[in-house]
């Protein structure tokens, strides 16, 4: 089974007054580079971090992360 996890974090940060990767990372408890890796689709976060990110944008998980076949 092949697929990948996409996300809208870059767009959502832009809509949140251009929140920086460092700010988001600080709020969810990961480094700026980890946020960059998640945004680029190079790293899939744990469920806990994914929920934290979604909660930061006050959105349900599926509006931030999507599974693409």
């Amino acid at each position, binding site marked *: 089974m092949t697929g990948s996890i996409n996300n809208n974090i870059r767009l959502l940060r832009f809509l949140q007054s251009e929140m*920086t*990767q*460092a700010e988001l*990372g600080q709020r969810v*408890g*990961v*480094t*700026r*580079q*980890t946020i*960059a*890796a998640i*945004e*680029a689709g*190079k*790293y899939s*976060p*744990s469920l806990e*971090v994914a929920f934290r990110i979604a909660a930061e944008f006050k959105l349900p998980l599926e509006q931030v992360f999507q599974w693409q076949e």
Partner: protein
Amino acid sequence: MSERETMPYREKVAWLSMLAMLFTFGPYFTLVASGYFPEKPLPDLRQLAGYAITAAVQVTILVIGHIVLRRNNRLDSKVPADERDIAIKQRSVSAAYYVLITGMILVGVIMPFTSSGWEIVNSALFMIVLAELVQFGMVVVGYRRQAA
């Protein structure tokens, strides 16, 4: 703060540790392999001095390197390891463990039947250095693979 992707602090530390190891133990093992230290019974102060100088230079490079890295990465150096850092570390330590355990079986179980003295000491040192290089290398590869 710039959104430009920069190398994670822990990757920089891994590069420093790997290069310090290569710049010090590389020449040391080259000298050992070339027969620069003639085989003498333990403790063989000349060989011991060679090892001591190598270790001292490595520690000096690491101390200076860490000071420079901390000074140039004040914020990043204070951020605790996150889940990605821990996962990369775990994978690298796991790979290094297999190298080390293989090396210790060779050096500690097999070599005593055929060798003695500094040959065993240097072989053990080589396997430790190799395991460390694998660990630092895996950390670097882990971060590079996931670099944005």
